[in-house]
């Protein structure tokens, strides 16, 4: 925290002595705000406080307690094994077994398959979505032409499209990717587009005065200005991509087994402890990908955008 304040005094000692300038020009409160701003966004990390950690830990303990209670008090032995095995059974059978077809190993392998589809799908949705938004931004006609269909993509129930995708692209990886992209692309398109559109009028004037070309305007003003909105879109798309990939597993059943299909199998075979672990692993993956996009967003935006500090 001291690094930021010291640059104020340190760099200009032999030139104009900017500290004196600053003190005279900026009223005390404003100067304090400036220092504040640099401090909150500086390298100093917040310390983890017991008060922040305790409530979720207590709630977690409570939930586990309720879980045991329902499992042992409200269920007979037969139902317990199928409907709600107690936590230690889930851990014993689902998490601590490492065999080819049992325990955590097939779950992680399936997660890898689905995760790859989700990530590649998200990447395609990001690139394609931004490209579509940029084209819409460059031409009014394109905007009018494309936007209704972008909305249609979003409102179409993806399950209704599955048979058509199957007919066209079969049951393999391509179909899984298409389902993923279809779910993930809409938030990228809309957020990028509205981010580009929300460029300040005076910034447009500034670029007009400097006779900037359309592409310069896009590249140096609209696109950087749209980054916060684009990352909002990507974060929504990240969640959608995971859902899309898992849904894809259910319906496109050729190739490596994905987590969605594994969950389906476990449910049919009544392998409840492993079913639980598979569900938890896929949730954790969803959280992971969401957090990764959030971290990327913070990295890109931290220096200049206020919202970046609150993200993740």
């Amino acid at each position, binding site marked *: 925290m001291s690094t930021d304040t010291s640059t104020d005094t340190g760099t200009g000692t032999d*030139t104009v002595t900017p500290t004196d300038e600053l003190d005279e*020009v900026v*009223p005390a409160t404003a100067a304090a705000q*400036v220092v504040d701003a*640099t401090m909150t966004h500086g390298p100093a990390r917040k310390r983890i406080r017991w008060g922040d950690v305790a409530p979720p830990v207590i709630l977690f303990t409570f939930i586990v307690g309720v879980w045991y209670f329902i499992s042992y008090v409200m269920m007979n032995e037969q139902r317990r094994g199928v409907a709600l095995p107690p936590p230690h059974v889930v851990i014993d059978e689902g998490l601590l077994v490492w065999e080819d077809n049992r325990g955590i190993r097939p779950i992680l392998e399936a997660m890898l398959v689905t995760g790859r589809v989700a990530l590649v799908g998200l990447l395609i949705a990001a690139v394609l979505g931004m490209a579509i938004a940029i084209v819409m931004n460059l031409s009014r006609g394109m905007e009018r032409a494309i936007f209704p269909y972008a909305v249609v993509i979003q409102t179409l129930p993806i399950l209704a499209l599955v048979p058509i995708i199957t007919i066209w692209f079969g049951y393999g990886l391509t179909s899984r990717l298409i389902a993923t992209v279809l779910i993930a692309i809409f938030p990228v398109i809309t957020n990028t587009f509205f981010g580009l559109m929300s460029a300040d009028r005076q910034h447009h*004037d500034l670029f007009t005065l400097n006779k900037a070309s359309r592409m310069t305007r896009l590249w140096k003003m609209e696109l950087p200005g749209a980054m916060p909105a684009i990352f909002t879109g990507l974060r929504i798309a990240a969640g959608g991509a995971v859902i899309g990939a898992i849904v894809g597993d259910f319906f496109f059943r050729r190739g490596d087994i994905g987590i969605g299909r594994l969950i389906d199998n476990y449910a049919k075979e009544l392998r409840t402890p492993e079913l639980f672990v598979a569900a938890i692993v896929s949730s954790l993956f969803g959280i992971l990908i969401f957090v990764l996009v959030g971290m990327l967003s913070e990295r890109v935006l931290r220096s200049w*955008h206020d919202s970046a500090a609150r993200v993740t």
Partner: protein
Amino acid sequence: MTETGSTLHESPMTEQHSTERARLRFEHLSMVFPDGTHTLDDISFSVEPGEFVTVVGPSGCGKSTLLRIASGLTEHTGGHCDVDRDSIGYVFQDATLLPWRTVQRNVELNAELHGMSRSERSAKATEAIELVNLVGHEDKYPKQLSGGMKMRCSLARSLVLNPKVFLFDEPFGALDEITRERLNSEVLDLFQREQFSGLFITHSVSEAVFLSTRVLVMSQRPGRIIDDIAVPFPYPRHHDLRYGPEFGEVAARVSHGLAEAHA
């Protein structure tokens, strides 16, 4: 030169330059927007080399439109506007900095958009940052700057291209009094050093008189020039000029003009 010539020669700064041709000239300029709003009516004046002209007037009288026309951002509907558009500096109401760029990179922007080489624009920017007293803040982002520092950065950005005509669209309206007066003095330092011609829009009578060689008063819409007041004080002008009786006299005349404009 014709209709405004008499007032010009009262101001000491203009004497030495009066042989050069006007840098900015409006002739019978009028502006009617497509929705029928008659904003400017028969505006004629020019800004000579060495002149700093300030326009005051009621809100919505078309002062900003005048600047937009001068810069080419808005196309006027009648009369003439004569200015070299390649040599204009425009300072907006807000600092209009790009928040994702540091001070240094913001100051470089105009030069960058004009295709100036990296090394040249970097050197120019460094020079401009010194002129506006922002040394030591080059690597900060706009959100880390106070309002006054943002305006300085905006000024520096325009300075990099050494414009001959500087248009100011009420740039210090949002600043507190102390900062504003300080920036007024700095603008005058730049005016003397860079020898640009200034056209300044403001609501503040004191600011108008302190800065200018001439103050024009505009009427309510459709805006017309209803008074043209020469400000006789020599440059450099000291901060305390504001508190002298002569200053008060000129300010009073501008103030009365404004009161008439509102009537």
